[in-house]
């Protein structure tokens, strides 16, 4: 299979942007523009890759694009693999990232003026795309490290006092996760002698392979659950996602958690197909706990961004349950859910940030935001639509996710878990109306009435909300992509053969 140079784009264009931004450390304005340009370029290449795959998949061909780094034949070197799944996820991420960089253009946070901020942001973008594209499990580990360190840097230097504490906690917990992953990889390598995921999947499927590699599944699952902040690996998440600067918290809560989701999907569909039943049960149980834990905590927490962070905790639960059911429709539902949630959540977090940026203390605490959005009709409308989308109200994209997921549940005949997740969906409505009413309907108090004249621009979240609306009204392309993806996931030989060229 030929190398497809486009696959490099989503990873190395932001990477290049980060380096250029580092060179122009003195000119913050220029840094921001470089970041945006690089992210748009990455987005374009990501779209091109997905389009090529889509085209191939529709005509029934093998829809996998690969790039062998250093031109070493797998499994001896590192290979980037853009199959339907990774191409779809990278498009989702790069789209949201363009939104994030667009937000930084007009963001008034002080930390964005620090020279290291935009390079770190660029590195994070590269790392996210890389984690999806890499076909090598050790390179996945390295990309995850890059993702962790760049996000830790950006949160640690954030304007809020608590940010450093949150960053340290995340760094330490994440180091724990890295250790698990490393042990898992070590075990896999020791018993199979390979690091290429296609190779691992093939070796574990065929033949009487050593059991050690299977035990490593525990370690890998734990790592990915930690990355997605699934119960009980979630403790770092609310602090970390809340104290981050707005554009970053929007990325963390929408796409960075999806890296773990992606990892789990790879585990159950490629690496550990034989174990997918056991892993699935764990996912369903932890996911449902997460739905209720996250939802109820979001209902009672005190900060507008924190509500959304806890909400992510719950929403990831929905996705995990879908993966856990592991029928074609359920997996399709999980994919659609993951993509839609990324757009909704990033937009909502940015909108909260915009409202908070007008606040005289620049705080997102609910008591400081009472009635803060009363005069901001456009922001209010966008937030309202986003809230409804999150709660799964038609005809917005969140409804499509829920519909797809519920159909998956019906197909899986998992009645108890289906009932629980539908019931859990009501909690979303509760906390979103609570926050919406408080910020956008209530009369400002004496404390919250004085507002700054200038705040962050709401262009980026408005665009993301527009995507949410469009993905609701015109849901067919995304659902078709998800269906094709699931078809490909159901036939791992496509992936394996394209990579190994057998």
């Amino acid at each position: 299979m030929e190398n497809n140079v486009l696959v490099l784009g989503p990873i190395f264009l932001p990477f290049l942007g980060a380096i250029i931004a580092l060179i122009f450390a003195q000119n913050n304005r220029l840094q921001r523009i470089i970041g945006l340009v690089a992210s748009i370029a990455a987005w374009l290449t990501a779209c091109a890759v997905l389009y090529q795959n889509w085209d191939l998949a529709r005509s029934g061909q093998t829809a996998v694009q690969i790039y062998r780094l250093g031109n070493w034949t797998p499994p001896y070197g590192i290979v980037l693999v853009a199959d339907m799944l990774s191409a779809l996820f990278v498009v989702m991420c790069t789209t949201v990232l363009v939104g994030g960089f667009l937000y930084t253009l007009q963001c008034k946070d002080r930390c964005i003026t620090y020279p290291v901020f935009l390079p770190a942001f660029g590195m994070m973008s590269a790392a996210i795309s890389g984690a999806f594209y890499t076909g090598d499990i050790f390179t996945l580990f390295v990309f995850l490290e890059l993702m962790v360190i760049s996000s830790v840097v950006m949160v640690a230097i954030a304007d809020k006092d608590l940010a450093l504490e949150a960053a340290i906690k995340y760094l330490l917990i994440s180091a724990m996760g890295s250790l698990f992953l490393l042990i898992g990889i070590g075990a896999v390598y020791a018993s199979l002698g390979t690091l290429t995921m296609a190779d691992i999947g093939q070796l574990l499927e065929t033949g009487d392979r050593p059991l050690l590699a299977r035990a490593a599944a525990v370690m890998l699952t734990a790592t990915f659950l930690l990355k997605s902040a699934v119960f009980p690996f979630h403790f770092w998440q609310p602090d970390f996602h809340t104290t981050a600067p707005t554009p970053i918290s929007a990325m963390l809560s929408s796409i960075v958690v999806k890296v773990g989701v992606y990892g789990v999907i790879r585990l159950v569909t490629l690496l550990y197909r034989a174990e997918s039943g056991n892993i699935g049960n764990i996912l369903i149980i932890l996911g449902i706990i997460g739905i209720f834990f996250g939802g109820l905590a979001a209902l009672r927490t005190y900060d507008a961004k924190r509500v959304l962070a806890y909400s992510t905790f719950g929403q990831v639960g929905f996705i995990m349950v879908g993966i856990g059911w592991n029928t074609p429709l359920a997996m399709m539902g999980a994919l659609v859910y993951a993509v839609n949630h990324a757009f909704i959540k990033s937009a909502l977090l940015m909108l909260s940030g915009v409202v908070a940026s007008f606040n005289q203390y620049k705080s997102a605490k609910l008591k400081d935001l009472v009635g803060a959005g009363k005069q901001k009709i456009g922001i209010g409308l966008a937030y309202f639509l986003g809230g409804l989308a999150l709660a799964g109200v038609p005809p917005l994209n969140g409804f499509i996710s829920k519909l797809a997921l519920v159909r998956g549940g019906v197909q899986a005949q998992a009645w108890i878990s289906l009932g629980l997740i539908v019931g859990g969906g009501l909690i979303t409505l509760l906390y979103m109306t609570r926050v919406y009413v408080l910020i956008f309907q209530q009369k400002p108090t004496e404390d919250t009435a004085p507002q700054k004249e200038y705040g962050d621009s709401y262009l980026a979240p408005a665009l993301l909300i527009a995507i949410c609306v469009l993905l609701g009204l015109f849901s067919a392309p995304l659902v078709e992509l998800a269906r094709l993806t699931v078809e490909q996931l159901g036939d791992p030989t496509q992936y394996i053969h394209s990579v190994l060229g057998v």
Partner: protein
Amino acid sequence: MDIVLINIVPFVLALLMVFPITRQLLGRNGLTWLTSGAMAVLFFWLLIFIPQVADKNVISHTYTWNADLGLSLTWYVDGLSLMFALIVTGVGSVVFFYAGYYMDDVTQLAKFYGFLLAFAGSMLALVLAGNVFMLFIAWEGTSVMSFLLIGFKGDKDEEARTSASRALIITGGGGLALFVGLMLLGVAVNVVNGVDLFAESGFQLETILQADVKSHSWYQGFTFLILLGAFTKSAQFPFHFWLPGAMTAPSPASAYLHSATMVKAGVYLLFRLYPTLGKTNYWESWLLFIGLTTMFIGALFAIRKRDLKGLLAYSTVSKLGAIIAMLGLPDSIGLKAAAIGILAHALYKATFFLLAGTIEHATGTRNLDQLGGLRRHLPVSFYTAVLVGLSMAGFPPLLGFVAKETLLEAMLPEHGLTLLPIIVVTSASVLTVLAAFLFVWDVFVSRADQQYPHFHAPHNGIHIGPALLAVMSLLTGIFIAPLLESIVGSAIGKDIKLYLIPSNLNPLENHAFGLSLLVLFAGPALFVVRRYWLNMPWFNLPTGINLYKAFIDIIEWIGDQLLRSQNGKLRYYLAVIMGVVSVLMLIGGAQNIHGLSIDITANKAIDSVKIMTILLAIGSTAASIFLRRHLLAALSLGIAGYAIGGLFLLEPAPDVALVQFLVETLATVLIILMIARISMRQRREVMNVLWDGSDDTHFGVLRDAAIAVIIGMSVGIFALAAVDDRQARIETLEQVEQDVIDEGVILPEIVRPIAMWHLENTYKETEATDVVAAILADFRGTDTLLEISVFSLAALGVMTLLAVPKGREILIGKNVRDVMQSMAQSQEIERQQSSGNKLDTSQMQQIRTKTFPLPEKPDQYGAYGDEHSISRLSTPLTRMTATVVLPFALLISIAHVLYGGTAPGDGFTAGVVSGLAIAVWYVIFGYYETKGRLWWLRPGRLISIGLVIALGNAVLGMIFSEGFLNIMKLDVHNPPAGLHFVSTIVFDFAIYLTVFGGVTAIMEAIAHPGEEAL
């Protein structure tokens, strides 16, 4: 096609309302006429469909929306849809016209119209939906618009906000139940019909209406869920409480949504699904029970309400209950009564709400106790009220009379019912009569001398709408046969006869007529004597609102408890995470690992030196836990690292050992420097915040120890199993290869571990003799490229972080003179502020741009005249050593880079070596002298140059060689000193620069004397 257009019109108009230009162009009157005119046009347009529908023709249009999900948009018109659509457009037209005179502010009016139009569109879509998904979508749409309209005055009214959310939660929750119910129904239909489970046709109304699902085993389940949806939407007991709460909406919205249309959505759904789900005991008992209960409770509450709209709301609840109950009657006997009831109620109740709006608009109150005598002030409203009041009470010749007549007839025990329903219905009807009398009398007639100091006569146009509806009540009553027969007939799907005056007027033979007469006498009679009983002390019926509040309280309480788990202590977080992983390991790993025989002696390369080293590593690790002084703990951790390095050396793996030693040295130096910089007190504080240092109970220690042991043992087993595994694999492999040689079988190359391939092919492929170096810089060059990014980002992060807290300038990319300059500026600002000058932003800016005189050269100690910065270690001997060490370190580094492909050492080790030399400088010379003497050393720039070279090298490989990061071989024959000029040297050099820059950056940040020196 027409029908789709009809449905789209309201949405288009709603969209128009979003733009300010619409209201600026049209003004109040324009808006009013546009919206109500459009609704009237739609009404007459729909009338055209009557003949078609009366012939039992069904009009339907389908558009595929999302084939993969089985979503399609289908419009479906039969008699039932048409009847509801006519109500939506007809009442809509009147309400829109009325609202134009009701709302004072044009901006608010446009917003209100926007919401109402969006609602009208959703409601039309709901009743015209031919696909249960479309029905559900429209259903949710009406709930959302209802939320917005109830909370329309939310900024002023706390109650409006809570009622709006409550209504949304109740109807939204019911919507979820409905969603699952419909989904299961669709599955059942498909099972029964034997079609593909998720075919697009599965959720079409046509399919569902023809399916026989009553015998399906899920019947009770999905019926219950669907009923739940309908009951919440139509405000049935015990969910009825949201409707009285919804009265905070502006009156036109109440008239439209909360009496005429939206609350009938539940009724519509049950009506619609009656052929599929109805006529079973399960269905009938639920509907009769809930419907009759709601009817009675609603009527009872209505007469006690002194709030005008509250009274109307409860009476609406009562009427909805009656309709639901009629749908629960056996053999379709209630359908006719239900249809007429829906029409009659829409006509009279909407009018009442509009009148209530007029009254509130004029007098500023809706409290019955503060009203009275309005006959003089609002004569038109009075006559309208009398007319609709009579219809509500059920006096001939109004439509309400026919409705009550048919209702009583349907409930008669002659159809095999017990006596209870007829008793309930009769008494509720009596109470309804009373409610109508109360409204008309207390508002318009009693207390004729009531004064209204703030009376504000409304525009005359406001009376037109209600009067029109009232006249319609009269006309449809008198000319019932020609006007309604075809509509009602086609709605319930059979030919019927409608008449105003029953043929048999003997009350003893025609029981319904007799009961009707009884009601008409008992009602006024009770009204006359009401002062003797109506104000008696009353009991409070337990209602759903208490349940709802309790529910909310409970989940909020749970939420609070859950939040307490987020206690901020890293120790517990890690304990939970590792605890869960150890449990998973025990469950998941144990069954897989057992059976694996672990033989430590299998690895023959065990000797006493190795055992000693291992013991040293374990001992010093343990010591690092028990040592209370941080410095000693750090040192013993360093020793453990060195011991592991020693193990590598013994293996022998000199490359890895070298890296391990250097990294350990670097890490230990960094930790010690940081410990020196941070005071003990600060460290303790941080420990308390993050770690919970205060709570060293026995249990805590034991728990942590247990988790550590389990994790440690698991990892240990992993490692041992790995060793064992590898041995077994190599043996198998050798065996297989032997077989290959013996029998000539060709084995796919893939089975061999990639390490063997690397060992065999490295020199051939890369001309490097050092396999580790080749893997790092070549085979897995991408990993290295990423790792140096991680490293430099971490270094830059540390640098920024240490520079940030006091708002100091950030050092990246600045030379020492700039740094000094900005420090001098900060000093100046601080000096001025401490002397009491308040500086504003522009003054600050001024100082920031000012240039301060700096000493030309560092003085003999290197510091710019500042004794704090002189290190205690700065003696002539150490200064000399440090000066000598640096060039040597740089030379060693260059050697590492150049010979990376053939000998131990590579770009990374080179960078660490150079960085350590710089560290020595910072320790010996202090910050300022080092910065001054090594002016050329700018860590930020080193990092960026390194990264540029690394990436450039990778890209050049793509352009001139075989791909991204591919090595380029420069064709140099007989290279000097055994060097191979391949692009890995360039890459190694880039790694060197980056790592060197990173280490220097961290050192610089740590060595910076901090605020106290300034």
